[in-house]
């Protein structure tokens, strides 16, 4: 039996310390999903915390045959989709970086210009993501940040596999169109041959 399964069993019997270990293990993937979905560090923090609270309250309903990560990310994804549907419009501030701090390029980094450019590109990509419809966005995040298969995405988002395929295809095309529109300068610097296809 894995450590994770032991923690889950202990947490299901009411051991809060065991659940804390699960929070520690999954804080990064859950926060990342919430951040990519909601676009703001504060909202992502709230959503990630709420996700763990929901998981805690429903832990007795967790089916041990399923992956715990998929179950947890499913709670996070649906929570974020609900939030996005409620507020409809996402305002994303590009003044803040991924840890909620104001961005100041590191002058002592080996190449500050490159670092700053990378940071800017990350923010632009993040901005592109916010243009997608919530469920499409969740599918894209699962695909790129968690290397989830279409079956796993379908399980997480409670969709059929063909629906996931179609959503991913539509989302990638939309992202490419936006990319083409917004990033002509970066296009000149980048070669497309780093794709996994090569």
């Amino acid at each position, binding site marked *: 039996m894995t450590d994770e399964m032991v923690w889950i069993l202990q*947490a*299901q019997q*009411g051991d*809060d310390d065991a659940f*804390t270990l699960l*929070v*520690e293990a999954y*804080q*990064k*993937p859950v*926060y*990342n999903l919430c*951040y*990519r979905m909601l676009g703001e*560090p504060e909202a*992502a*923090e709230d959503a*990630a*915390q709420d996700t*763990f*609270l929901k998981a*805690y*309250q*429903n*832990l*007795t309903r967790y089916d041990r045959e399923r992956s715990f990560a998929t179950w947890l990310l499913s709670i996070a994804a649906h929570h974020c989709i609900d939030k996005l549907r409620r507020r409809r419009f996402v305002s994303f501030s590009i003044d803040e970086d*991924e*840890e*909620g701090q104001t961005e100041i390029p590191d002058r002592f980094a080996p190449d500050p210009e490159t670092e700053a450019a990378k940071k800017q*590109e*990350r923010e632009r*990509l*993040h901005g*592109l993501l916010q243009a997608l419809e919530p469920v499409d966005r969740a599918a*894209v995040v699962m695909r*790129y*940040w968690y290397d989830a298969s279409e079956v796993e995405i379908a399980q997480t988002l409670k969709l059929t596999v063909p629906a996931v395929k179609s959503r*991913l*295809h539509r989302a*990638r*095309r939309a*992202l*490419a*169109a936006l*990319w*083409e529109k917004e*990033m002509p300068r970066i*296009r000149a610097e*980048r070669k*497309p*041959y*780093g*794709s*996994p*296809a*090569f």
Partner: protein
Amino acid sequence: MDHRPFEDWLSNEEPLTPQQKRDLTAHLQTCRSCSSLAEVDLAFRSVRQAEPAREFVNRFQVRLAARKQALRRRNALGFLVLAVSVVGLLAGLAWPFIKTAVASPVDTLAAWLSSLVNLWASFQALIHAGLVLFRVAPGFVPAYIWAVLLFGLTGWSLVWVLSLMKYTRIPQGA
């Protein structure tokens, strides 16, 4: 221009054959749309995971404690409201009797005693009738009817107990 095989190649995880690679490279040099797709794909794959601010777990523990406390408060308040409502309702229902009892206590006590005696007599008669029936009935009712009744009663009890277990399960943290 037909983008179909190239889009599929770009989205699939499987490695391409040398010929497919050559075809894809040639296509990407001429097709702006597929080239964007490849670029955006690569760009997204290179973005690292965002990390929460430090002490995330501590903040979770604080939230969890606050949530539990709020739940306990809500339960206590709910119990208080229920208790006050029940006492109020009982007092409302009993008010006419209380009023009469206060107005003429001796008459009320006599009436209550008489009711108690009647109730006790009725109860005894009922018990007696039940015992007689219990002695006589088995002779009239065939054994298989008893078996069916017993089986039905057991099944019904089982369903009742299982339903109670299913619907009264308290979620963790409640």
